[in-house]
């Protein structure tokens, strides 16, 4: 999962980014003002946008409106020091998905971010199942037939993304874009390493193949026999 934080208070931005990296295992980019925030939001695929309301250059509301006007539908969480009803209504009507008033609790913040990212992928339950595999996105725990698997942080992130897009075909590029932040050099074979590691661990524990490789297209988390729309077409 990859998150963009648009916040002009550098300290707050850093704290928010750190907690998202630590507690939600997200790749986080930070933009210090509205203009740069909008540019970054429109140029990379983010799974969640965290937007401060009072920003230099472009206000949060302007960024939000332009972002939605561009046809982006990733969830947006607004951070604001003002909680007057009119402002909240205006924000939600402009396409925001949720808001938090400063000063907020980081625990609540992370929970809301996770819920928004989940729902952004069309998943409502925090626990995703695929045959014998169970991915708990809150505890960040993976179980196969009730037995807990020990995964590395990157392996978990790859699996979580595939699980949230359960059944769908996910390209290597998509995985790279959604798992690494702006400053990362993107090498496709890194993904192959994680996938093979995941396969070894999951199949070793259950004997069932849940991560399918579609040659030339990418990967999909599904049981054998299920077919994606894209392949059919």
């Amino acid at each position, binding site marked *: 999962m990859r998150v963009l934080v648009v916040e*002009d*208070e*550098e*300290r*707050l931005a850093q*704290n*928010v980014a*750190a*907690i998202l990296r*630590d*507690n939600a295992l997200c790749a986080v980019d930070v933009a*210090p*003002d509205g203009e740069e925030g909008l540019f970054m939001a429109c140029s990379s695929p983010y799974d969640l946008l965290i937007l401060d309301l*009072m920003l*230099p250059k472009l206000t949060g509301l302007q960024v939000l409106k332009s972002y939605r006007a561009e046809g982006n539908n990733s969830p947006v969480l607004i951070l604001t*020091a*003002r909680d007057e009803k009119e402002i909240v209504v205006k924000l939600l009507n402009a396409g925001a998905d949720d808001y938090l*008033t*400063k*000063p*907020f*609790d*980081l*625990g609540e913040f992370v929970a809301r971010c996770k819920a928004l990212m989940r729902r952004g992928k069309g998943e409502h339950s925090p626990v995703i199942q695929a045959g014998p595999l169970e991915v708990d996105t809150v505890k960040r725990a993976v179980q196969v037939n009730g037995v807990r698997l020990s995964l590395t942080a990157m392996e978990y992130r790859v699996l979580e993304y595939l699980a949230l897009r359960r059944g769908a075909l996910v390209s290597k590029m998509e995985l790279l874009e959604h798992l690494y932040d702006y400053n990362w050099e993107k090498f496709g074979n890194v993904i192959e390493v994680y996938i093979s590691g995941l396969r070894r661990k999951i199949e070793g524990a259950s004997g069932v193949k849940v991560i399918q490789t579609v040659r030339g297209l990418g990967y999909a988390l599904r049981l054998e026999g299920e077919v994606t729309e894209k392949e059919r077409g």
Partner: protein
Amino acid sequence: MKAFSLNRRLILAVVASQLLLGAGLVLVGTSFSKHYLRRAFDVFLQGRAESMAALVYYRDDGVPGLLFNNAKIPPSRHRVHKDLFLVQSDRDNLLRYSPGFDPAMLGRIPANARFWRFHYKGAPYRAIILRKVGILDTEEGEPLPLPTLTVVYAAPTMDIDQQVSMLGVTIGLVSLLVLIPTLILAVWSIRRALTPLNDLVAAASTVSVDRWSFEPSQEARSTRELKPLIDAMQTVLSGLEEAFTRQREFLGDAAHELKTSLAILKSTLQRLLNKPREREEYERGLAIMNGDCLRLERLLNRMLQSARAEQRIAKGHEQEPEPVEVAATCEGALARMAQFAAERDVRLEFIPEGEATVRAEAADLELIWLNLLENAVQYSPRGSVVTVKVCAETGMAKVSVLDQGCGIEAAHLPHIFQRFYRADSSRARATGGFGLGLAISKSLVDFYRGRIDIESAPGRGTCVTVELPAEPGARGEGGGSRDRAASISR
């Protein structure tokens, strides 16, 4: 106090005046008509009495004497209550009277009175008494002198009373009848006349804390009596709105500032607690949060200063402060600023070009200079100079604070004295400003009836000039104090 209706009062006043007018008309009408009818009646009585006298004639056909022509007695006007008369000669040789009016009555006639009122058979009568009336119908050669006559003629006066009361009743009824259309007209015109007032009330009742616009109808505005009220209300409301908006903005900005500072502190703390860390990490985090707390404390102090300055403007001067030497307060501020400037490697320079005294609290002046100096030092690059100049101009003490900093873009200048306004918020936070210093300075300068101006251009530095009304007679003589010029720096 009991509420009363203007509408009802006006209508009552119209009704009362109408009734009074009616009563007056009845009174005046009846008394005038009574008077004239009486006069006419008296004339009638006199005529009748004289004609009765004219009926007496002297005849000498053997037995000379006075005769009375019975056949020509004029008929009574009233059918039931007949007129009464009595004709008597002074020599008692003639006496004629109507039935029921015997000579005994003569005794009851008041002596010398011309008119006499009495009751006869239950009816009021008025009588005229003519004395010493000569006999008109005479012939030649009659023996002179002839006797004179006393004639009494009485007629019932019920008719007069009846007519008078009829007239009174008629006038009264007519006035009552007129009252109905008058009342309708009054109600309509009062309603009509009060429309602007009602409009005004309606317009005033829509004013609230959320909706300040007060727009009475054109009719109300063009009513001469209401115009001063409307003008006064509009002045008060616009003043209130401005004060309210300013207060609300200040509150909103203050809340934003506090919440943001608190959000930074809280998130730092929670991030630190999020997972077990090394001792050094905790120590570093705590030191950072200590700095945050100090910053919050400074913010609160600044907000209190600002609130106090505003409050003082609202209250006005309680008592005239003592005269203070401007240069001394500048030196005080420069001394307090020295360490902060040294930390940033900024040199402070003081050029007192003239001496001036103003009536102000020394602490207030020092606070103004401190705020200006703090801004100047904050936005100055390392190794640059901040200059404070004091001079005296016609009746004004002038203090300028110049820096060689980054300057302010023209677009920001009109807002620069607003509370919490910062030309570049991210930069300002990094340098530790709150956007309150200039606002506090302006409040204080306003309080002392001075003026504050800012000149700046990007890359060319900033110059803030404060002018305060100087105490007359205490002006220095220019260059005399130049030897005091000192460069306070480290």
